């Protein structure tokens, strides 16, 4: 080589190993890959603009699609149900946990208990979802979490949960967007 590097930058370049010129392939990111959130099953848009208000009403009245049963005298059970353990994700407290028991077949129901979640504020609420391996999303209803961080709810499940890969709980801003916020706080595989 007739020309020699004359300054520090050129010396740095000359000292670069092969990988420095080729951008080495790193290992996968230490966080799980994002689910394709954008697909939503038609016919189950349970959340209109007033979702937060509706959720609050559900909590207050214990009626309609989701019935909050926390604190009741009878333990919430689902006959012949499959129990799914929910583990924390994202910003959730690592100690947060949950459990969803789902009946098999169409038109069943689920009983879900969560604990250790951040209490809901005026501008957000939690939403329960079924997520398919292909990204299909079905919202099962929304709910608020009280100061205790614990909640239990019973919801109708208008689809066969066996078709879905995950039960998911997301934190949703009250922004009128019916899609998943991509901010999951609990999730568990159905199988």
């Amino acid at each position, binding site marked *: *080589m007739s020309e020699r590097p004359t300054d520090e930058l050129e010396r740095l370049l000359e000292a670069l190993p092969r990988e420095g010129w080729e951008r080495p392939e790193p290992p996968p990111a230490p966080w799980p890959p*994002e689910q394709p959130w954008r697909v939503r099953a038609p016919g189950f848009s349970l959340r209109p603009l007033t979702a937060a208000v509706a959720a609050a009403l559900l909590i207050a009245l214990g009626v309609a699609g989701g019935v909050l049963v926390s604190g009741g005298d009878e333990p919430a059970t689902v006959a012949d149900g499959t129990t799914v353990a929910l583990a924390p994700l994202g910003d959730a407290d690592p100690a947060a946990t949950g459990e969803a028991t789902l009946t098999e077949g169409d038109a069943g129901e689920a009983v879900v208990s969560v604990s250790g979640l951040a209490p809901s504020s005026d501008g957000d609420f939690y939403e329960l979802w079924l997520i398919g391996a292909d990204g299909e999303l079905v919202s099962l209803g929304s709910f608020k979490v009280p100061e205790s961080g614990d909640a239990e709810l019973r919801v109708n499940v208008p689809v066969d949960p066996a078709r879905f890969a995950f039960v998911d709980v997301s934190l949703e801003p009250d922004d009128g967007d019916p899609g998943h916020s991509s901010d999951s706080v609990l999730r568990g595989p159905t199988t």
Partner: protein
Amino acid sequence: MSAAVLTAMAPAPWAVRRGPSSPLPRRFVARLHRRDRRALDEVYAEYAPTVFGYLVNTLRDRGAAEDVHQQVFLEVWQRAPDYDPDRATLLTWIMTIARSRAVDELRRRVPEPRDPGDGHELAADPDPELSPDALIERWRVAHLLSRLRPEESELLRLRFYEGLSQSEIAERTGVPLGTVKMRMVSALRRLRELIEDEDPEAVPA
């Protein structure tokens, strides 16, 4: 296909230099602060190859580099809400974390001295050119090479990695020698600008 794979095909929009001292978009920083998954995937796609290359180069053990790499990006995830773009660029911030974890790993390898007088000490790397601090400067430059136009970085690779003279580059590529010289000056100038843009204190003389 994950967002990380998608964004690996092209630099993230915020990573492309748009002018001197171009700051990170405020909206992107806000996404980072709330640990938005897609923002973190973009950060990973942009910086993970550089961090991994630096760790392999520094630790000289691919398995250890993979472990430390995971630690680095878990720390990025954990500390994302505290990232202050006014204090450091993302490249500087992430490479500082990588350097700290690499030093931790190297220190763990040093055997505990059994006797204060037996000569075992926290010895510096025998080759100062391969110290974590020396290599970090090298890999910052390697990272910025990825922001050059492909023909610019290829020209620099032929010159500085393959060790070809400008005449040999002209001969190999079929580009006239005068054009090679002009492009070489331009590529080095642009690289210096990128380094200065990242960290005005770190421009090599």
